[in-house]
């Protein structure tokens, strides 16, 4: 298990464009947003979070688009599927490493931005946990979509994944709404964490089933 972890980490770490690129894309989206509205306006505070969610969604979409493609083409996936049940753990670890190298950095960046944008420390407690959880969910679901459209291009993957993210986006919107009214947000965060726990178990299982079907 640990060898698998080291191998996958090595594979992603070596491809600089695969993990640094998305982080820079995230940075560019968040920077370019204040340019398009008037900098002084107070409205920025209210809509800033939604830009954060959409930026993280787009970043994950860009970064995950080739998650299985290279391994599919060079036959690594075939090796793993022949070896008894390691495809499941391989998918699990692959998704975890994407979160480690892309999800966590963009969450930290987004938190930094939201604190500096709103000027309140309280937004730290809204942005960080919700971005950490939501990026993990996004990576899982985009991995699912991209495993379905493995060698058919990433547009199809995005098209079939985006509707599945709809409940998560509603939850994120609710979190911001509750925080603006000064209500408790921990219950919504826990709900999202529960969704994440379900997804962590089921999505790699479904993905390994899909990959096996691809290799038939």
């Amino acid at each position, binding site marked *: 298990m640990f060898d698998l972890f080291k191998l996958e980490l090595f594979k992603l770490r070596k491809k600089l464009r695969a993990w640094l690129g998305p982080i820079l894309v995230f940075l560019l989206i968040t920077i370019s947003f204040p340019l398009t509205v008037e900098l002084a306006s107070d409205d920025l505070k209210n809509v800033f979070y939604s830009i954060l969610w959409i930026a993280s969604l787009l970043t994950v979409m860009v970064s995950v688009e080739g998650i299985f493609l290279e391994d599919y083409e060079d036959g690594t996936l075939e090796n793993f599927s022949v070896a008894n049940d390691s495809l499941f753990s391989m998918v699990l670890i692959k998704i975890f490493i994407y979160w480690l190298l892309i999800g966590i950095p963009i969450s930290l960046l987004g938190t930094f931005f939201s604190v500096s944008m709103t000027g309140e420390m309280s937004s730290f407690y809204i942005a960080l946990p919700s971005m950490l959880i939501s990026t993990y969910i996004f990576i899982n679901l985009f991995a699912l979509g991209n495993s*379905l459209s493995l060698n*058919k291009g990433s547009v*199809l993957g995005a098209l*079939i994944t985006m*509707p599945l993210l*709809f*409940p998560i986006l509603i939850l994120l919107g609710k979190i911001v709404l509750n925080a603006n009214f000064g209500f408790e947000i921990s219950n919504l965060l826990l709900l999202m964490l529960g969704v994440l726990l379900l997804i962590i178990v089921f999505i790699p299982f479904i993905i390994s089933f899909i990959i096996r079907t691809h290799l038939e």
Partner: protein
Amino acid sequence: MLKKLYHQFASPKTYVVLVNKMYPYIFYFSLCIYTIALVWGLAYAPADYMQGNSFRIMYLHVPASFLSQSLYLVMAIAAAVFLVWKVKLAAYMIKSIAPIGALVTFIALVSGSIWGIPTWGTWWQWDARITSTLILFIMYLGLISLHGSFTNFEKADKFISVLVLVGFVNIPIIKKSVDWWSTLHQPASITLTNKPSIDPSMLYPLFFSMIGFSGLIICLVILSSKVQIFNREGNKSWVKDHV
């Protein structure tokens, strides 16, 4: 006995024979019912005291919205049947229902926005029910394009069933969107548990229109599934006798 019946019905041949026999009855029955409902609803039901005559588009809008979600439910059941028992007929059903579901959802969206102009003063609002129905429409299109992008149909069947089952998480949200959020769209008037909040003079034609419209859509599903079966099983010998 039951198992034998189940296996028999799961074979495309028995299905086609049965459906060929039933089709005219279903078609003429539901056509009559829907015509009765339309005449009753459009000509005889009283005008609404607030909306005037514009509410009469309900006899298209409500059945279409109802079916847009029910067809997805049928697809999800078929997907589960296909993945668990490997019944090929179920996979053909998914493939043939998806375009019809998209069509019905489109009808619901268009009739809803036509209804929205006189009652809400706007034809589109980013409200929970409308947005989630639009997403349902995009989900149908995604299913169609996923199946269309594979030349190997056996694989495509498995992928589309997985996607239908995963996408099913959205259906309860679409169904409950009018109850969970305070939105422009009204909550459901007809539920299984409560007394309907529509006057009987409008309710009966609505029930008739739902039965009739569903019957007509079922006819469409039958035709489309026959096309699907003949496409995929075209090299079998029994197909010749039933075309």
